């Protein structure tokens, strides 16, 4: 079965290889006994040049993808370590305030984290899809939803259909290794430039090299936290904490919300960078494999065509010789 498909592909290739001047030659010579397909410019056999060139380019592409895979793999190790360490930053906040993705508020800001570079599988599309779903969930009469977009790739996807909702876009984040100072300055910039009741941070959580979970982390504004705490529910326990010193509860909550946002952002950015590298690794791995498969197929076609021409030549010589002797 495989042989049949291969032969069919070989035939298609042969017809692709010699399309030039087939029509012209036919017009000039008129009807001829020689097969047009085998005789483009007085040549006796199909040229294998095209296949050879293609093989060369596929080989080069394979080299590039292999190199990219190695680079991603070596970067991943360092980032993964930092990501796993950074999880300790948001966990206390979740223990204290809980994660409240379903809180219904008026001003929603969706912070979508994506990568600046491509060739990393579907992780950017998943976070964009997740953000759009959140947008739909949270939009309604008298409600406002805005996007804050991190990274080139998500920006490009949002520009297509939800331009109007973009509030801020941030790029070139990964020029230097990610660090807390950088992300906190960024978080500060976002806080100063948007009005929010709830910030919803969308990123790909790194699970393993092949598994990334699109995740939403919610940071509520101090007013909303207070309101929710009064209403009871998950945040009701907040009142049982004792506040030291002369600060009011509002001040504490304000500080907490700001710090929570920058910590969650830090973790989100790192998780996403880690997922990006993991996704790039597996994407490049599969594309190197594909290139290898393609190379095998092309080599087979090439050899088959070459052998066919040799066989034809041999047959011609032998039959010519036997015609002379006979």
């Amino acid at each position: 079965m495989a042989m049949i498909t291969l032969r069919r592909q070989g035939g298609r290739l042969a017809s692709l290889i010699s399309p030039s001047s087939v029509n012209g030659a036919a017009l000039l010579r008129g009807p001829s006994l020689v097969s047009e397909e085998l005789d483009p410019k007085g040549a006796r056999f199909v040229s294998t040049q095209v296949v050879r060139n293609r093989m060369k380019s596929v080989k080069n592409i394979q080299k590039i993808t292999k190199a990219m895979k190695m680079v991603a793999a070596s970067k991943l190790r360092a980032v993964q370590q930092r990501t796993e360490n950074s999880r300790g930053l948001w966990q206390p906040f979740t223990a204290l305030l809980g994660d409240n993705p379903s809180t219904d508020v008026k001003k929603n800001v969706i912070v979508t984290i994506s990568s600046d570079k491509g060739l990393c599988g579907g992780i950017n599309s998943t976070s964009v899809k997740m953000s759009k779903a959140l947008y739909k969930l949270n939009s309604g009469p008298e409600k406002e939803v805005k996007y804050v977009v991190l990274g080139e790739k998500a920006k490009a996807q949002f520009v297509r259909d939800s331009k109007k909702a973009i509030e801020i876009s941030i790029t070139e984040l990964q020029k230097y290794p990610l660090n807390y100072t950088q992300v906190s300055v960024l978080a500060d910039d976002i806080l100063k430039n948007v009005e929010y009741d709830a910030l919803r941070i969308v990123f790909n959580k790194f699970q393993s090299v092949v598994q990334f979970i699109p995740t939403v982390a919610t940071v509520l504004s101090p007013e909303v936290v207070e309101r929710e705490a009064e209403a009871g529910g998950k945040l009701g326990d907040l009142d049982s904490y004792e506040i030291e010193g002369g600060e009011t509860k509002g001040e504490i909550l304000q500080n907490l919300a700001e710090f929570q946002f920058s910590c969650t952002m830090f973790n989100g950015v790192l998780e996403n960078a880690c997922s990006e590298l993991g996704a790039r690794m597996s994407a490049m791995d599969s594309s190197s494999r594909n290139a290898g498969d393609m190379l095998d197929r092309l080599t087979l076609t090439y050899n088959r065509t070459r052998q066919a021409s040799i066989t034809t030549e041999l047959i011609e010589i032998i039959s010519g010789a036997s015609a002379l002797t006979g």
Partner: protein
Amino acid sequence: MASNAAVPFWRSAGMTYITYSNICANLVRNCLKDPFKAEALAREKVHFSVAKWVDGKPQKPSTKQPLTPIEEQKARKRSLGNKWYTQK
């Protein structure tokens, strides 16, 4: 309880908790001795570009870049750790 007294001051100066804590962190980093100090300061590089969008169109992006050592020294002289990065 020095921090309690300081709260209204930095808040009324228009700083957020993040800026305040960053300034404090930077001060602590500056207290390190030299091989560690240079290392710690070099680690914390800030670089990204921000663009605000109005009516579906991006405005001119502004970039935040790390300071070169000379600029950094000047900035430190200018204000005692208040302005720890420049906005270009």
